[in-house]
């Protein structure tokens, strides 16, 4: 994802999903869900539910007192010798990174996986300024070579086969590689090792920001996160203001929930805690540390109490894995780096319903996401609120749905709410459809309803429920 999207057409995107995507998605999600379930079982469901509730309460407490904890985090980072910057929007955040890069005459930037930097389109901005920027998470590295964004927030390149990756490495890196995961990983290690050592600037996100000590927490498996925050002379962390947690005691709960929910690990391989730059030269590590606190619409999410819990997400990806819609279309259809149910509620508020009003409808409202969410976000309730915002508007935004849809919805409400009109309408429909019905199905409908029948027949309208009920009661 190189640029910030201005309009998302989920329907059109989902029609362009490659045929092999659903199978690849389902293979991955089934594996993650299986690993997760085994660990939850080992822990015991009672304990797991206790942890979920505590995770929810702790995160919501932090969000409900966000100004207090942000100020505390800022004080602590500054005290530790780090530089704190505030960015109102994507443009401001990009400018701050570019300024830091400029001060250090940076030519090469290495990045560890960060959804916040995807959100602000950082790579594109750096490249436009003539700075080379490399994604270093293996999956992100692969999709970057391919010129794409992440298809999943935890495993960005899971939809590509090892043959495709071998071909990509041949084409872009000029190396002949056998199509084996092990060999391909070693090639990426070798290539990126040189880049880590040569990089002028390391950019990371942050899974959490601990207010108590101003500590940036990153959770990774590959070690690239450690590389980006240790090897280059300057470290810049771009962290959303909603990532704050009060203290280390709260962090214990969230770490237990995160790794289990994301990849089915008790703890991820490397969990890193960074409070400012190193205090002594002997410690090794970057000489300078910058924290960019990114708003970019997050403060707006807080305005609607019904939607506020959007902000407590810990980005584990479990709701993507369980979602029947995500499992059929994969990440790209959402047109945003954060996909799935949590992406749908986040993106439609960050971008606004004019740009992303399609996303709240990209759900069956089955509620599996609510049940699996480790911090108990009521995702479907928020989706419903956002659907309401799209169609009728609310105190925050005007309606975004086309006039015809709004009129249609209102007409439907009148028809279904008025007994005589409903009965009259059903009789009329039954007569009108008669010439087109063959064995209970209609093969073609007149425009504009033919959009349905281009791909499948439409069931004939039976319309005799009242009659059927009367007969049945006799």
């Amino acid at each position, binding site marked *: 994802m190189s640029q910030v999207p201005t309009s998302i057409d989920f329907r059109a995107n989902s029609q362009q999903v490659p045929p092999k995507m659903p199978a690849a998605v389902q*293979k991955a999600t089934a*594996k993650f869900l299986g690993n997760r379930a085994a660990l939850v079982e080992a822990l015991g469901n009672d304990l797991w539910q*206790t*942890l979920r*509730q*505590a995770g929810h309460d702790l995160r919501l*407490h932090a969000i409900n*007192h966000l*100004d*207090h904890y942000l100020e505390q985090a800022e004080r602590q980072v500054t005290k*530790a010798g780090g530089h704190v910057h*505030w960015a109102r929007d994507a443009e*401001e955040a990009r400018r701050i990174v570019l300024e830091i890069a400029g001060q250090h005459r940076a030519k090469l930037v290495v990045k560890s996986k960060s959804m916040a930097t995807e959100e602000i389109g950082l790579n594109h901005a750096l490249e436009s300024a003539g700075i080379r920027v490399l994604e270093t998470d*293996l*999956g992100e590295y*692969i999709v970057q070579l391919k010129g794409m964004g992440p298809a999943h927030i935890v*495993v960005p*390149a899971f939809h590509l086969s*090892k043959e495709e990756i071998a071909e990509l490495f041949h084409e872009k890196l000029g190396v002949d590689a056998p199509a084996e*995961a*092990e060999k*391909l*990983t*070693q090639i*990426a*290690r070798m290539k990126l090792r040189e880049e*880590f*050592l040569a990089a002028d600037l390391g950019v990371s996100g942050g899974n959490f920001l601990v207010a108590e000590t101003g*500590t940036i927490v990153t959770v990774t*498996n*590959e*070690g*690239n996160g*450690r*590389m980006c925050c*240790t*090897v280059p002379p300057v470290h810049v962390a771009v962290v959303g203001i909603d990532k704050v947690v009060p*203290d*280390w*005691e*709260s962090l*214990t*709960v969230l*770490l237990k929930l995160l790794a289990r929910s994301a990849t089915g690990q*008790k*703890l*991820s*391989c*490397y*969990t890193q805690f960074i*409070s400012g*730059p*190193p*205090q*002594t030269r002997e*410690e*090794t590590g970057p000489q300078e540390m910058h924290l960019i606190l990114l708003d970019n619409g997050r*403060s*707006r999410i*807080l305005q609607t109490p019904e939607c506020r819990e959007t902000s407590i997400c810990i980005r584990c990806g479990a709701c993507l894995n369980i979602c029947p819609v995500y499992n059929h279309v994969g990440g790209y259809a959402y047109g945003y780096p954060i996909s799935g149910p949590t992406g749908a509620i986040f993106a439609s508020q960050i971008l606004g319903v004019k740009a992303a009003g399609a996303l709240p409808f990209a759900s069956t409202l089955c509620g599996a996401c609510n049940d699996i969410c480790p911090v108990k976000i009521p995702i479907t309730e928020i989706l419903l609120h956002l659907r309401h915002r799209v169609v009728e508007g609310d105190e925050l935004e005007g309606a975004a749905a086309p006039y015809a849809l709004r009129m249609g919805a209102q007409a439907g409400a009148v028809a279904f709410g008025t007994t005589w009109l409903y009965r009259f309408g059903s009789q009329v429909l039954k007569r009108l459809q008669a010439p087109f019905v063959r064995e209970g199905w209609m093969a073609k409908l007149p425009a504009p309803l033919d959009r349905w029948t281009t791909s499948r027949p439409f069931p004939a309208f039976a319309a005799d429920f009242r009659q059927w009920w009367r007969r049945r009661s006799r």
Partner: protein
Amino acid sequence: MNSAREEILGKVREALGRRPGTAVPSVPPSARVGPRKAGDPEAEIAQLLAEIGKLSGATRRLGSQDDLRVALADLVKAEAVTKATLWTTPDLAAWDVAGTLRTLGVELVSPQADKHLVAACELGVTGVDAALPETGTLLLRSAADRPRVVSLLPRVHLAIFPPRALQVDLHQAFADAKDAGYSVLVTGPSRTADIELTLTLGVHGPKALYAWVMNEP
């Protein structure tokens, strides 16, 4: 810059209906379970090493200085170590890890040397500041005698620590670690499943993790 700060904090306060400096209620309980009770020390060590083993780490329980010498000789041979870098903590000094490596013909590189030189080491030796048996996790703090790059850049990471490093859980480990400027939890060697979900060890961090519990120096 400041205006951005004021504007963001202002918007947050307005959305939450809070005034600057308003008191914050205490943090909700953290579902602290237990506290977990540590069992018999040797059983705890066995559990720790078993968990690290499950994550493809190589583990040993060592007693005497001779055990350590033999184990180091094995490792140097198995991993074809020619250059190593290490922490300068009192434990590693008391066990004379540096001296032993030198007698095994290994060249020692200062962790503060140029990063290319450190990255060329096959082996980095550290202690740990805490070890958690439940998850097979090692906690490494950063300090002048504990440089960060030692456990990161070399191909093999060896952690040697005494039984007293074992702690019951994250709560206890964090109580000490939270005031460190930098620390990292290491749970097994570097890994990825980014290519077709095939588990592969050694992406960017060390390819191999050795964890040895050694009796007090």
